[in-house]
Structures are given as C-alpha cells and as structure tokens.
C-alpha cells in the first residue's frame, strides 16, 4: 500500500489520475475504520489534509463555496447563517473529536445513505464540484447519489467543494437515534423554504439505498404554502406533508430500526421540521435572510 501526500491541489489531481484506485483520506473517520478492521485494503491512500484550499470556504458569486475538507466543527462555528440546516446536521455528527476531523467531502465520498450532510445538501439544492486533471464539472446533489455508496464521482475525480445557494428562507434538520451524540441516524430529514424561488426542498437520510428527496412532498408544500402572506399551514396540510415524506422513503429493517419505525419517525420529523420552518418564515426570517 502506498501513502500519497500531495501538497497542492494540482498534485492531488495528478495523483488521483495516476492512481484511480487510491482512497482519498481527509479526516479519516470512515477510511480508518475500514483499515483498522481490515475490511478494505486499498492500493494507496491519498492524503488530502495538506491541500490548504480544501479547508477554505467563502462567498462565490451568489453562492457559498465550502471546500470539501472543511471540518464539521468549522461548519458549526462559521456557517450557521449561510447554511443553517447543514450546521444543524454537523452538530449531530458523532462527537467533538470526530467533528474536528470529519468533513462534508468525506461524507460525500463515502456516500453512506446515513451520512448526516446529505439531507441538507439535497434540500438546499447544493452543487458538488468534482475535479480531475481533465477539468472541473458540477453535479447537483440531487443527481449525485446513484446507489448504496455509489455516486456520480468518477474514479479519477476528487470532490473539490460544495456550492450552497444563497439561503433565502428557513431550513431545519432533524435526526433520530438512540442518543444525541455518537449515533448513526436511524432516520433523518431536512426541509428548506426558499422565499426567493418560492419552492420547498426536502432531504431524507438513512431510509433508502441512497439519500432521497420527497419530491411529492416538495411539490405539495410549494403549492400549498402561502409564500406571499406567510399565513399558517393547516394541521391537515402539515400532516399530509409528513405522510408524503414517509411515503417517499424506501427503508429497510436493520439493526438500527425497522422500516415501519423509520417511516413513522420520518412523518413525525417532517411535521416538526416544517412547523419550525413555517414559524421562522412567519417571524419574517425570509425577508432578512
């Protein structure tokens, strides 16, 4: 096994091109588990921690560009305003030690359906920036997840960054597990209300072979919500939204929970996240966002 340690992004892309089988490693919180337990023996590790720009974030036109190597700790501390749901999700990741190391890029690279970043990225319509020696391409998060741990990233590509649209309304993330810390989600959910485009977004985690959207729930909410007057949603509408979210999930029974429980939990989380979001919207958060 080789240990590749590029100092620049160009070197990293060249290394990935020369070693398409190399496993990129940033925080190591997934990769090292596989190595420690001898579940996977890659031909090479490609250490990206020395590529400084991966850990940078900042405005990029009308979007926020989040380097693939920004830690969850930094996201919590710095991105609460720009990407509240992603920051909320980051707060639920594991423990402080893991949040100091773990990154959204790593979450995307591993593409576990239970990854905490995915629902906020789906709901906010984020874009994944992929790069190789041949150039850069952008893939919508909504088209990124192809199957269990399979993504649109090609073998010679590295995940460079996530582009988050400028927030124009409330966002909320929920996650259910056996305790607050150190849990892989039994199920998770995110909803966004975008006052600028007058559309709703959703993301479902840990309840299907990939992170999912609840498209019918988004369409229902986009049509039903009083974007102009910010009037309250009826209880029946909130309940129906929850049902549509649950019916979009494709969960299985596993050690963390049954499929039925996951669907039930999703309907509850969807109602709660929507109610919080509508409350925020009615408080006028949409105007000042």
């Amino acid at each position, binding site marked *: 096994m080789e*240990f590749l*340690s590029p100092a620049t992004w160009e070197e990293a892309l060249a290394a990935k091109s020369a070693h398409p089988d190399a496993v990129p*490693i940033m*925080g*190591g919180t997934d990769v090292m588990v596989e*190595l420690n337990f001898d579940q996977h023996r890659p031909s090479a590790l490609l250490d990206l921690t020395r590529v400084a720009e991966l850990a940078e974030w900042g405005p990029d036109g009308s979007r926020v560009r989040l380097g693939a190597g920004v830690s969850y700790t930094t996201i919590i501390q710095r991105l609460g305003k720009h990407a509240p749901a992603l920051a909320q999700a980051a707060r639920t990741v594991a*423990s*402080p030690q893991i949040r100091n190391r773990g990154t959204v890029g790593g979450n995307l690279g591993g593409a576990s359906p239970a990854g905490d970043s995915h629902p906020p990225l789906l709901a906010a319509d984020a874009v994944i920036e992929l790069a190789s020696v041949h150039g850069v391409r952008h893939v919508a998060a909504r088209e990124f997840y192809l199957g269990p741990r399979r993504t649109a990233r090609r073998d010679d590509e590295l995940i460079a960054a996530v582009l988050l649209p400028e927030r124009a309304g409330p966002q909320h993330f929920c996650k259910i597990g056996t305790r607050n*810390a150190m849990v892989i989600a039994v199920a998770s959910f995110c909803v966004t209300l975008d006052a600028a485009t007058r559309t709703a977004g959703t993301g479902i985690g840990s309840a299907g072979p990939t992170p999912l959207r609840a498209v019918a729930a988004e369409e229902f909410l986009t049509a039903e919500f009083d974007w102009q007057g910010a009037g309250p949603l009826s209880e029946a509408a909130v309940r129906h939204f929850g049902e549509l979210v649950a019916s979009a999930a494709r969960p299985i029974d596993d050690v963390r929970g049954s499929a039925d429980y996951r669907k039930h939990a999703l309907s509850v989380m969807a109602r709660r996240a929507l109610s919080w979001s509508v409350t925020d919207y009615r408080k006028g958060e949409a105007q000042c966002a």
Partner: protein
Amino acid sequence: MRVTFTVNGERMTADDVWPGESLLYVLRERLGLPGSKNACEQGECGSCTVYLDGVTVCSCMVAAGQCEGREVGTVEGLADDHSEGSERRLCAVQEAFAEAGAVQCGFCTPGLLVQADDLISRTAGAGRGVPEDPEIREALAGNLCRCTGYEKIIDAVRTAARREHEQVGQEAP
C-alpha cells in the same frame, strides 16, 4: 515509511510504519507512549483522544502519515514537567480526577483527561468562565466510561474548570 512529528514538544521519528497504520498504533507500539488507550478503533469510545495541531482527535482515526511534521499532544504531556528526576506535578484536570474519584478501571481516563483539558482551556482558561453542565456533557459525549456513571467525572471537570477560572481571574490585570 518513516514518519517524523512532534510529540509533547519533542521531535520523534517512527520507522517501518505501514501506510495504513493509525497514529494511535504508532504512539503506543513504536514511540513508547501507551497512555492513549486502544479500545474500539472506530472513533466510538474516545479513549485514544490526543491533540493534533491543537484540536482533539481520536488518534485511531488518523493515519500516521497524516501527522508528518505536525504537533501531537498526548496524555503523557499533560503533567507540567515530565522530565526525568523531576517531581511530576499533575495538571489541574488530573488533580481533580484523582480527588473526585473520577477514575475506576482507568481505561477511559487518558482520553477523558485530554478532552476535558481541551474544554477547560477553551472555556475557563480563555476567560469564558466555568462551563455549564450541558457544555461539559457535550464536550465529553464522545468519551465512554463503563465504570463511573460519569457523575464523578463531571464533578472533576467542574472542579478543575472552577480552579482554572479562579487562577485566570487572579492573573488578569
């Protein structure tokens, strides 16, 4: 491969490191620093917590090669003076753990000490006052103890933070 980095202020080199080897393994098996404990090897238990470039991490989840040229701080480095022949003075958190009976089997203790030391330096030590219990509990959420039920540990962290706060207050102009 050869890896050279600073541990507790001292430059150290490990040879014949397998590229997939963890920082924890290198510390324990190659550098003679067994204070950081090996339990879960998957970031669940926190007993291998060390400082890496000033932030706490699970050393079982860091590839040793990622530490080349970097600074690592382990539980062995918490005491003020660990040179030979010196009277080893424990750090505030270590003193408080011993006093409070926050140690039973001791396996989780090194990780808890490093994580608590970090919390106290970021709060009381930085003039932010004594952390409330929820902040202490959140900071220690990734460190599992199967003996104490955590109460004595929280007591110890509270005591250490209070002392640090008082000391910082005295030092202030």
